[in-house]
C-alpha cells in the first residue's frame, strides 16, 4: 500500500513525457492527485503496516503531513486547469516535475530510514528547481540558480549530519528511526550534538529559516502563484518533518533542551529578520515570502517550547499550509491578470476583480491570524505555550514580530486591493477553476477556526505525543 | 413655606442692594476725583429707563441673541440664593452646591459668549475670546479657594463654608484665610470686569471685554444684562464679606446690618481702586490672574502643612 502511494504519482509523472495535449495532461495530473487523496483517506481509516523491510512506515506525524500534501496538491491541480486556460507554454516538463515532486514528498513522509529521508528531501529540491524557472526570463533563471545552489549546499550539510548521526551509534551504525526510537542503540553525546547541528542547519536551509532564508524572496518572487503556493505551504513542511524527526531522536537521547536552544536561536532569528526586511518590500509575493519565513520561525519555536507548544506547532503547520496556499494562489491570479504583483503596477484589485480582491483581503486576515480563521487559535496557543514554559522574552519577541509583520503585509495588500483601479495589462475575466481552488482552503480555515474535527484532534495529540513524552 | 419666605426675603434684599452697590461705586469714583457724580440711585433710574425702551435686533442674530439675557439673568438670580446673609441661612444649601454654583456661572458665560458671536462683528468676537481666556484662570483659582475652604470647614457646602454659625476662626486659620480673601478679591475684580482687568466705563472698542459683549443689546435685554452684572458683583462680594467678619452677633437683623456695611465697604474699596489704577495691558492681565491662582495655591500648601 505504502509503495503504491509513492509509485502512482511517479509513474504518472513518467507518462507526462508522452505527447498529450495540454488539457489532457492537466486532467491526468488532477486524476493522480485525486488518487493520492483517496489513498490518504483510507490511511486515515486504518493505519497501514510498515513495508519494504522497514524502510517505509507511516506514523501519525507522517500521516498529518501526507494529508496536507495531498490536499494542497489537489488544490494546485484544480488551480492549474484554470491557470492554463490563458497560458501558451507547453506544460510537459511542468506536469512531470509536479508529479515527481508529489512522489518525492510522499516518500519523505513515509520513510523510516534517515538516509532515505535525506534522499527524498534532496529530490524534492531537484524537482522543484525547474518549476521555479517557469518563465525562462533572466530573473527567474537567476532565482532558480540561487535556490538550487543554497539548497544543494544545505542538503550536503544535512548529508554530513546524517553520516555523523550514523557514526554516533558506535558499533551498531544504523539510521533506522524505529531502532533509535525504541532505544536499541546508545548514541554518544558529542557525535550526536554535531550531527544535530549539521542536520538542523542543512534542513534549515531547505526550510528557509532565518540566516539561510535569502533564496526565498527571490524564488517565491519569480515562481508562478501555484508553484510558490506548493513550495511555501508543503515543500517547507517536509523539512519541518525532518526537524520533528530530529526532535524525536533528541527527546529519546535526552538532548531535548540542547535541541530547544538551537531551535530558539533559529526561530528567534527568523522572527527578528523577517519583520524588519518586510517593511522595505515592494512586491506582493516577496512580502508573502517573508511571511513564510516568519511562519517557519513560529513552527520551529513551537517545537522548541515542547508540551502544549508542539501541539500548537502542528496545528499551526496545518493552518499555515492552507493560508499560504490561499495567499499565493491569489497572488498568482493577480500576476496572470496584471502581469506583475508590484504595488506600483497593481491598484484597486477589489474594483477590477471583486472575487480575487476579496480573496486577497481574506488571505491577509488568514495569514496574520484574525478571528474567524484557524491561524488565530494556533498563534494564540503558541504564545500561550511560550508563556507557560516561562519564555517571556521569546513571547514578547513573538508578539512584537507578529505586529510588525501585520504592518508590513497590510501596507502592501491594502495599497493593492483598494484605491482607484489601474487598468489591468492583460485584461482577463475571473476564472472559475482558479477561484474554486482558492475558496476551498478559505472554507477549511474558517471551519477549523470555529470547530475542531475530532479525528484531526486525536491525530494531532498522537503526533504531539511522539515528540514530547509528556501528556498533551 | 419657610423656604418660599426666605427666597422672597433674599431676593428682595439682593434685588435692591445690587444696583445700590453699583451706585456706591460710581459715587466713590466721582468723590475721589472731586466731582459730585450722579445720585446714589442712578442705576435704578437707568434700569427703569431701559425697560421702557424698544428692542432693536440686527438681521444676523438668531434666537441665541434673544434668550442670552434671559439665561444670564435667571442663572444669576438663582446664584443669589446660594449666598448666606451671615446668620440668615442661604435658601439653597446642600453638599456639593459649590459645583452647581460654578457651573451656573458657566451656563451664563456660554450664552454670553455665543450671543457675542451672533452679532457677527469682530469686536464682539474679540471680547468673547478674552472672556473665554480669562475665565479659564479665574475658574481654576476659584476652585483652588473652594478646595481650601472645604479643607478648613471640612464640608463641601457653600453655606457651611462661609455661613456657618461659628465662623472660620481667624487665629487658627489666619494665614490661609488672608491668602484666600486676597485671591477671592482678585477673582472678584476679574470676574466682574473691574479696573485692573477691564474698564467698565470705556467705549474704546479694542479695550472692552464685558462691555463689548453686550454692545448690541438694547431696551429690556440691555437692562437684564446690566442688572445681571450688578447681581454678579453682589454675589462675589457676598462670598467675601462673611469671611472678613470674624464674629457672629447671633440675631438676624444686626448681622444683616453688618453684612450690608461689609458690602458697601467692598464697593467703596473697588471704587477707590478704579479711580487710582489704570487698566492693565491685556497680556499683563494673565499674570494678575496667575497671581490670584498662586495666592490660592500657597494657601492650599499652608492648609495641607497645618494638617500634616
Amino acid at each position: 500500500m505504502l509503495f503504491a502511494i509513492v509509485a502512482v504519482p511517479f509513474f504518472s509523472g513518467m507518462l507526462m513525457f508522452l505527447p498529450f495535449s495540454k488539457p489532457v495532461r492537466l486532467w491526468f495530473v488532477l486524476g493522480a492527485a485525486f488518487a493520492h487523496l483517496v489513498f490518504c483517506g483510507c490511511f486515515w481509516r486504518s493505519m497501514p503496516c510498515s513495508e519494504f523491510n522497514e524502510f517505509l512506515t507511516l506514523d501519525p506525524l507522517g500521516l498529518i503531513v501526507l494529508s496536507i500534501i495531498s490536499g494542497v496538491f489537489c488544490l494546485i491541480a484544480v488551480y492549474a486547469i484554470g491557470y492554463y486556460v490563458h497560458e501558451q507554454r507547453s506544460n510537459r516538463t511542468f506536469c512531470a516535475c509536479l508529479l515527481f515532486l508529489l512522489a518525492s514528498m510522499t516518500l519523505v513522509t513515509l520513510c523510516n530510514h534517515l538516509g532515505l529521508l535525506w534522499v527524498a528531501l534532496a529530490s524534492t529540491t531537484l524537482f522543484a528547481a525547474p518549476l521555479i524557472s517557469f518563465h525562462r526570463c533572466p530573473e527567474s533563471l537567476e532565482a532558480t540558480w540561487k535556490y538550487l545552489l543554497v539548497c544543494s549546499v544545505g542538503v550536503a550539510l544535512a548529508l554530513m549530519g546524517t553520516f555523523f548521526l550514523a557514526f554516533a551509534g558506535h558499533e551498531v551504525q544504523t539510521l533506522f528511526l524505529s531502532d533509535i526510537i525504541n532505544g536499541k542503540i546508545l548514541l554518544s553525546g558529542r557525535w550526536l550534538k554535531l550531527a544535530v547541528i549539521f542536520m538542523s542547519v542543512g534542513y534549515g536551509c531547505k526550510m528557509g529559516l532565518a540566516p539561510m532564508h535569502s533564496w526565498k524572496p527571490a524564488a517565491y518572487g519569480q515562481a508562478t502563484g501555484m508553484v510558490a503556493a506548493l513550495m511555501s505551504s508543503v515543500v517547507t513542511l517536509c523539512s519541518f518533518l525532518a526537524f520533528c524527526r530530529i526532535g524525536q531522536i533528541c527527546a529519546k537521547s535526552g538532548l531535548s533542551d540542547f535541541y530547544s536552544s538551537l531551535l530558539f536561536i533559529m526561530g528567534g532569528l527568523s522572527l527578528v529578520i523577517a519583520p524588519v526586511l518586510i517593511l522595505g518590500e515592494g512586491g506582493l509575493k516577496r512580502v508573502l515570502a517573508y511571511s513564510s519565513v516568519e511562519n517557519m520561525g513560529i513552527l520551529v519555536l513551537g517545537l522548541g517550547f515542547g508540551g502544549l507548544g508542539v501541539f500548537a506547532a502542528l496545528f499551526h503547520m496545518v493552518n499555515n499550509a492552507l493560508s499560504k496556499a490561499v495567499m499565493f494562489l491569489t497572488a498568482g491570479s493577480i500576476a496572470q491578470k496584471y502581469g506583475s504583483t508590484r504595488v506600483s503596477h497593481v491598484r484597486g484589485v477589489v474594483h477590477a476583480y471583486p472575487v480575487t480582491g476579496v480573496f486577497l483581503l481574506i488571505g491577509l486576515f488568514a495569514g496574520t491570524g484574525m478571528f474567524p480563521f484557524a491561524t488565530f487559535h494556533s498563534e494564540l496557543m503558541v504564545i500561550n505555550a511560550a508563556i507557560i514554559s516561562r519564555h517571556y522574552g521569546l513571547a514578547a519577541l513573538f508578539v512584537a514580530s507578529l505586529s510588525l509583520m501585520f504592518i508590513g503585509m497590510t501596507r502592501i495588500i491594502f495599497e493593492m486591493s483598494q484605491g482607484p483601479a489601474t487598468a489591468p495589462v492583460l485584461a482577463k475575466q475571473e476564472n472559475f477553476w482558479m477561484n474554486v481552488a482558492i475558496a476551498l482552503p478559505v472554507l477549511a480555515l474558517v471551519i477549523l477556526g470555529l470547530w475542531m474535527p475530532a479525528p484531526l484532534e486525536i491525530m494531532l495529540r498522537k503526533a504531539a505525543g511522539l515528540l514530547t513524552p509528556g501528556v498533551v | 413655606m419657610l423656604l418660599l419666605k426666605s427666597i422672597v426675603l433674599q431676593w428682595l434684599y439682593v434685588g435692591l442692594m445690587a444696583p445700590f452697590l453699583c451706585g456706591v461705586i460710581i459715587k466713590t469714583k466721582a468723590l475721589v476725583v472731586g466731582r459730585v457724580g450722579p445720585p446714589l440711585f442712578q442705576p435704578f433710574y437707568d434700569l427703569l429707563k431701559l425697560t421702557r425702551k424698544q428692542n432693536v435686533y440686527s438681521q444676523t442674530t438668531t434666537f441665541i441673541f434673544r434668550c442670552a439675557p434671559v439665561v444670564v439673568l435667571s442663572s444669576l438670580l438663582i446664584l443669589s440664593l446660594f449666598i448666606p446673609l451671615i446668620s440668615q441661612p442661604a435658601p439653597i444649601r446642600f453638599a456639593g452646591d459649590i459645583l452647581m454654583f460654578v457651573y451656573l456661572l458657566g451656563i451664563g458665560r456660554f450664552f454670553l459668549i455665543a450671543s457675542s458671536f451672533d452679532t457677527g462683528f469682530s469686536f464682539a468676537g474679540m471680547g468673547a475670546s478674552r472672556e473665554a481666556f480669562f475665565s479659564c484662570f479665574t475658574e481654576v483659582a476659584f476652585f483652588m479657594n473652594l478646595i481650601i475652604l472645604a479643607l478648613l470647614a471640612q464640608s463641601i457646602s457653600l453655606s457651611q463654608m462661609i455661613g456657618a454659625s461659628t465662623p472660620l476662626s481667624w487665629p487658627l486659620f489666619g494665614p490661609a484665610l488672608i491668602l484666600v480673601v486676597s485671591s477671592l478679591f482678585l477673582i472678584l475684580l476679574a470676574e466682574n470686569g473691574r479696573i485692573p482687568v477691564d474698564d467698565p466705563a470705556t467705549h474704546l472698542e479694542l479695550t472692552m471685554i464685558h462691555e463689548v459683549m453686550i454692545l448690541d443689546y438694547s431696551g429690556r435685554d440691555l437692562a437684564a444684562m446690566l442688572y445681571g452684572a450688578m447681581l454678579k458683583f453682589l454675589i462675589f462680594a457676598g462670598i467675601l464679606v462673611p469671611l472678613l467678619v470674624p464674629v457672629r452677633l447671633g440675631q438676624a437683623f444686626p448681622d444683616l446690618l453688618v453684612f450690608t456695611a461689609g458690602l458697601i465697604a467692598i464697593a467703596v474699596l473697588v471704587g477707590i481702586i478704579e479711580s487710582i489704577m489704570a487698566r492693565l495691558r491685556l497680556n499683563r492681565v494673565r499674570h494678575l490672574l496667575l497671581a490670584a491662582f498662586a495666592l490660592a495655591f500657597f494657601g492650599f500648601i499652608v492648609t495641607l502643612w497645618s494638617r500634616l
Partner: protein
Amino acid sequence: MIRFAWQVPFGEFSLKLDPLNLIFLLSIAVVTLCAGLYAGSYMRAYRGVRSLAAHAFFFSVLILSLVLVVTANHVLLFLGAWELMAVATYFLIIFHEEKNSVRRSGFLYLIATHCGTFCLLAMFFLMAQAAGSMDFDRIAATAFSPAAASVIFILALLGFGVKAGFFPLHIWLPHAHPAAPSHVSALLSGVAIKIGIYGLCRIIAIVPTLPDWCGYFLLMIGVVSGLMGVLYALGQHELKKFLAYHSVENIGIIALGLGVGLLGRTHQQPFIAALGFAGGLFHVLNHSLFKALLFFSAGAVMRKTGTGAIDQMGGVAKLMPWTSGLFLIGALSICGLPLFNGFVSEFFVYFALFQGLLLFPLKSAAFCAIGILSLALMGCLALACFTKVYGIVFLGEARNPDVVTSTRSPQDRGLDLPAGMFFPMLVLAGLCIWIGLCPWFIARLTWQAGTYLTAVNPAFISGQKIFSALGQVIAVSFGLLGIMTMVLLFQRIGSRIAALPRRETWRCGFSGFTPRLQYTAASFARSILECLKTILVFRKTGSAVLGEFPARVSLASGVHDAAEDFVFRPFYGRLRDLAKGIQKNRLRYTQVYLIYILFFLVFLIVLKFR
C-alpha cells in the same frame, strides 16, 4: 448576573451579564439604533455611486462584535470578538476609499488597534496561566501577587489605552474620525472607544488587589489626557477632527473617575470608590449620547456645506435652524452645564474628588486636588471650545458665500435635513435633557455598577448622601427653568411697544465691513494656545504684510500633535529607512549568502561545544 455557556473544543465559551456591562450594553443599544436610523438616510446619497451591501454587512458585524466583546466571559471569545470589532470598524472607516488620506488613516487605525491587541494577548495569557483557566470567573477567583497585578495593569493600560485613546496612544483617533462617514465616527467615538474603558473596568473588577500606584497613575492619565485632548481640540480647524480630540478629553474625565474609584478602593473608602466608578461609568453613557448627537449634526452640516473646515462656514443656523438647535443641546451637555446630562456625571466625579480631598490621607488628597483643578480647567476649556465652534459655524454671517449658500426664507418652517437623519438626533437630544432633568433611573444603574466594581458587599455602601445631593441639584435645575420662564415672560409680554424693524449690527461706525472680518477659529483660540506654545507645538505660518502695495498674504496657525509628530512618526520612519537600506544594497553575489550559512554553522558549533 445572567450566565449563558456552550461547549467549544478548547473549553467552554460563556457570556455573562452583570451590572458593569449593563451600562455599556445600554449605550451600545441606544447609539447603534440611532446610528442605524441615521445611516438609512445619510447613505441614500451614495446609493448609485458605491455598493452599500459591504458597508451594511460590516455595520452589522460591528454591532454583533460590540455586544459579544462586552458580554464575553472567556479569554479567547473576548479576543476574537475584539479583533472582529477592529476589522469591522476598519472596513467601515474606509468607505470613501478612493481618497488617499482615508486609506492612510484606516491603515493607521488598524495598526494601532492590532498592536494594542497584542498587549492584551500577553496580559490575558499571563492571567490565564496564573489562574489555570481561560474563564473570567475562574481568573477572578485567583489571588494575584502584587508584581503580577502591576504587570497585568500596565499591559491592560497599554492594550485598552490604545483603543480608548489615552493621551500618548490616541494618535489614530483624530485621523480615523474625519475619514469615516458621520454615523460610523459617531459609533466609533460614542461606543467603540468605550470598549477600551470597559476592558479596563473588567480588569479592575477581576483583580481586586491592584497595587495602590495604579490609582494614582490612572488619575494622572485622566488629567493628562483630558487637558491635552481639550487643548488640541481648541487648536483644530476641522469639525470632525475637533470632535475626535474632544473624545480624548472625555475619556480623560472617565479615567479621572475610575482613578478616584481605585484610590477609594485602596484606602478602604467604599463610598468614594463606588462614587468614583459610578461617575466614570455614568460619563461613559452620557458621552456616548451627546458625542453621537454632535457627530450626527456635524455630518448634516458637512453634507450641506460640503466641507469640514469651520473657518469657511458661518451663519449656518439661519440655513439649518433645527440642526443648529440640536448641536447646541449637544454642546451644552458636553460642557457639563446644569440642565443637561453632562453635568450630572461630572457632578458625581467632582463629589467623589471632593470627598477624597476631605477623607483621604495627605498624598492622595493632593492628587484629588490636582484632579479637581484639572477637571475645572477642562470644563472651562471645553466651554471655550464649543462656544468657538458653535459661534463660528452656526452664528454670525456666512464667511464664504459659495460654502454657505442661500439663507432660508423665514416662513419655511420645514426640517432642514431629511427626517431619517433628524429623528435619531431628536431622540438623542431628548435623552440628554431627560437624563439631565431626571437622572434617577440611570443614576441607580451606575451606582450598582460602581458598587460591583468596589468588590464590597453593596449592603454596606449607602448611596443616600449622593442621591440627596442629586435631588437638590435637580430641584435647583427646575428652579432655574421656572425663573427663566418668569424672566422671559417679563421680557416679552411686559413691553407694550412692538420691536423696531431689524437693521444692520452696530459696527462702531466702521464702513466697508466684509463677513471675512469676523473672528475665526484660529484668532479665537490664539490667546489661550499662545501661552502654552511649547507644550502644544503651536506654530504660525505665513508672512507679514510688507511694502506699499502688499501682495496676497496668508497666515495660518495650528497645533501639531506632539505624541504623533515626535514619537510615532519618527520611529516608523526610521524603521522604514532601515528596511529600505537593506533592500537597496541587496547583495548581488549569490555566494555571499552561502558564506552566511557557513558562519552560522561555525557559530553554532563554537556555541554548543565550548
